[in-house]
């Protein structure tokens, strides 16, 4: 009696099913459709709530993760930019740090903008010494880096053979103020007055080689100051053809470099 295994119960159950099969009782289609429609409406509304819950659950962590990611990228980019900036900043600030006279500072602003395209080929070798020499530029005792200042040096607007020769030497030398006293001291130490070309040409050479030593050590022979000094030497030695050839190369390499008179032609031919 407690289960369907009971024959009495099974018999009644069969009779009951047979009766329903004979009567085929079922709810109307309208009633069925109303229930199904209600279920469909409920599903349409429920999934939004149920489906949006996981999205809401993820929304905040996702936003936080995105913020952190963007911030990290921004910091990395900023750090890389700072690391790359000193190269450009050095070439621009080095002349400013060595600015002495108004004429020089005026002239140095110009090369700062001019030097960038011209020095671009040698840029990889320049940043390291520039950064290394930054403290020494503050002390003003050590020679300034010879990368960019030489470009601005020839812009000094002096006229005359002496000044030209001296400018040529100064052009060969770095424009740093520290180099000037050293050159003056050397001039004073020399017995002959350095009023003419040869003396003035010879003079910058050690300074140039000293200041561009770092550059030379890296195998760079394209240092414009030294290059100019060599051209002046060639002209004073009467080797005009070679000087012209070197000058042509120099101009090709540094198209915006201001060439001093002494390098353009021999003093004696002027």
């Amino acid at each position, binding site marked *: 009696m407690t289960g369907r295994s009971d024959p009495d119960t099974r018999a009644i159950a069969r009779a009951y*099913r047979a009766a329903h099969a004979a009567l085929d009782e079922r*709810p109307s289609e309208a009633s069925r459709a109303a229930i199904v429609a209600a279920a469909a409406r409920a599903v349409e509304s*429920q999934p939004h709530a149920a489906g949006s819950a996981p999205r809401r659950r993820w929304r905040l962590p996702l936003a936080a993760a995105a913020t952190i990611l963007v911030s990290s990228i921004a910091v990395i980019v900023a750090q890389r930019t700072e690391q790359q900036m000193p190269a450009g900043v050095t070439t621009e600030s080095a002349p400013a740090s060595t600015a002495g006279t108004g004429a020089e500072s005026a002239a140095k602003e110009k090369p700062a903008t001019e030097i960038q395209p011209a020095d671009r080929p040698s840029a990889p070798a320049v940043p390291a010494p520039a950064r290394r020499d930054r403290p020494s530029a503050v002390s003003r005792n050590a020679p300034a880096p010879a990368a960019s200042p030489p470009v601005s040096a020839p812009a000094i607007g002096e006229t005359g053979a002496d000044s030209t020769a001296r400018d040529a030497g100064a052009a060969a030398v770095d424009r740093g103020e520290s180099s000037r006293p050293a050159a003056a001291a050397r001039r004073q130490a020399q017995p002959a007055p350095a009023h003419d070309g040869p003396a003035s040409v010879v003079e910058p050479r050690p300074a140039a080689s000293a200041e561009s030593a770092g550059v030379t050590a890296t195998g760079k022979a394209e240092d414009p100051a030294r290059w100019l000094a060599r051209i002046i030497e060639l002209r004073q030695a009467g080797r005009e053809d070679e000087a012209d050839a070197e000058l042509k190369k120099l101009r090709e390499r540094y198209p915006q470099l201001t060439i001093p008179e002494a390098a353009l032609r021999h003093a004696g031919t002027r």
Partner: protein
Amino acid sequence: MLAYGAGDAAAFARLFDRHERPVYRFLLRSLGGDAARAQDLLQEVWLAVIRNATSYEPRARFTTWLYGIARTRLIDHWRAQRSDVSLDAANDPQADDAGEPLVERVAGVRTQEPEVLAMSRAQALAFVAAVEALPDAQREVLLLHLEGELTLDEIAQLTGVGMETAKSRLRYALAKLRVALEQWR
């Protein structure tokens, strides 16, 4: 049901297809064959299922839960129709069967199992009329057993009576129906 609560519309379709007619018949027989009222209550039952889909917890079989809703709707309906009628009043199976001569007969009679029960419409109408004529408590247990396929234990829990009470009600109901069956054999 859990799948439907999670938004699976197809799960509801499966549930509805499986239980729609049994629940309808449960209501129809309980209401004495009032098809219109049975359909109204059927909608109420399924709307209650839909409303409670998200909060449904499988503490018992879905069928037990479903027929519990149907039973509650029936009680509400009866209370609205006959404020003096209550299933609780018929909890005593002896009260239902007092003076019934079938009681003694049913206990020992075993009907031969029919190989095939091919009922005519008239026979079917007579049989369901016998079902509808059962006392409310007995009919309820019988219908929960036949339509909902609930066990006596589940019926007892659902109706709030003891196991033996549910068992007695079912026995009395079956005995009466057996008599009805014998009439057209």
